[in-house]
């Protein structure tokens, strides 16, 4: 067994919170630069240039890219030969988030209960922690802060198997149309297909970690990604929803087995400020 100190995890999570919020992902920045070239609307072009300038300023001044520094999702891939010592894993992750948000002057956006008191927990915890056990003796940590503007328009639908590819497309396009300007387009659309009622959204979320422009290895799926991206960009929604030819920067699909009677589809909508960072211990 390889031992990993909880303290190391804490520090890693803290640093990843800072990195994700201050430095826009390279692939996202590249996609924005391309979009600012191709966008036909002048106002849309202006908006994209502001977004690019924002990324430069945020990095230079160590300011959050967006004031909504999000709820903090933390994905852990724990090698089965790893033994974590010193503290509970979940506590270590939460402490990392707490320290990161404090040190980086990031906004605390979590409330203790969603329905009754809605009191701000004042340290952005609890983090949303997803763990899986994998072969090996490493611990992979991936952090994704995500704002509510785009999370609030994400959707899940249990389609009928007979709805097929056309049904999936229709649902994704409807979701993007409904999101409109509210989710800060140009969007990145993470799609999860298959699994079950709870698994499809998780797949959709995970797909947002994939590098923009990197197609799914299965050609049937990558073709669907490409078709969806083209169709989304023909909607005309444009940057910030006021019209334009770039409504999405990318579509990433993850797909897995499902029940003979099911076709779950989830669309996890990300704003243009798609933030994530990862490390391996």
């Amino acid at each position, binding site marked *: 067994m390889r031992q990993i100190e909880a303290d190391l995890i804490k520090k890693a999570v803290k640093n990843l919170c800072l990195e994700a919020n201050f430095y826009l992902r390279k692939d996202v920045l590249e996609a924005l630069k391309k979009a600012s070239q191709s966008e036909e609307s002048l106002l849309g072009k202006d908006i994209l240039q502001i977004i690019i300038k*924002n990324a430069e*300023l945020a990095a230079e001044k160590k300011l959050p890219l967006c004031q909504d520094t999000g709820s903090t999702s933390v994905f852990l891939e724990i090698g089965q030969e790893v033994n974590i010592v010193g503290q509970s894993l979940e506590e270590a992750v939460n402490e990392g988030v707490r320290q990161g948000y404090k040190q980086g002057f990031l906004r605390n956006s979590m409330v203790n209960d969603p329905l009754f008191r809605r009191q701000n927990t004042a340290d952005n915890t609890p983090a949303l922690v997803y763990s899986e056990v994998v072969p090996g003796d490493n611990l992979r940590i991936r952090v994704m802060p995500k704002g509510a503007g785009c999370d609030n328009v994400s959707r899940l639908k249990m389609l009928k198997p007979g709805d097929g590819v056309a049904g999936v497309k229709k649902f994704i396009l409807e979701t993007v149309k409904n999101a409109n*300007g509210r989710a800060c387009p140009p969007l990145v659309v993470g799609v999860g297909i298959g699994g079950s009622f709870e698994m499809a959204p998780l797949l959709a979320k995970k797909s947002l970690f994939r590098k923009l422009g990197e197609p799914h290895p299965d050609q049937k799926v990558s073709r669907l990604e490409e078709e969806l991206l083209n169709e989304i960009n023909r*909607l005309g929604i444009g940057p910030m929803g*006021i019209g334009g030819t770039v409504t999405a920067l990318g579509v990433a699909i993850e797909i897995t087995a499902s029940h003979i009677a099911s076709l779950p589809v989830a669309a996890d909508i990300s*704003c243009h400020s798609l933030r994530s960072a990862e490390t391996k211990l």
Partner: protein
Amino acid sequence: MVKKLKTPLSEAEIYTLKIGDRVLLSGVVYTARDQTHKRLVEALKKGKHLPFPLKGQVLFYAGPTPASAGKVVGSIGPTTASRLDSYTPLLLERGLKGMIGKGSRSPEVKEAIKENSAVYFLAVGGAGAYLAEYVKKAEVIAYEDLGPEAVYKLEVRDFPVIVAIDAFSSDLFQEGPLKYQR
């Protein structure tokens, strides 16, 4: 075309604005989000005074990140305006003239904007570090217990916005996309 405007806004100025106009706003704006709106509207309904005057004023739907040492404000940018739609008509009736947010508004809000000669501005979302450059002063003046949802009195200079719904009921969120649908 870029227009320069100072807050508070007059009706005469508002009538010169058309959707798609780029505007640089200067002067005082107040931040207000969900919980703040709830409190403001409750206060109005009970006939109580508000913590700031509404007449001619501009609300910025925003909750900044905390300012680090020596900074006026952290990152600041618009939140989704439609969440506040149910509160907005009453505020407009009571003298509110401008709103800065992101995303489209309800038909009721559009109607109230027209009836009360007001304007809804779009600011670029997810560009909080950029927009913070145009905020010259920031002070919490009410509801401090709400954390990021407290009311900040901001002094802005040449704060860049786009007219999204004008006083004539034109809506950039409807008209803009129509031009680019293929």
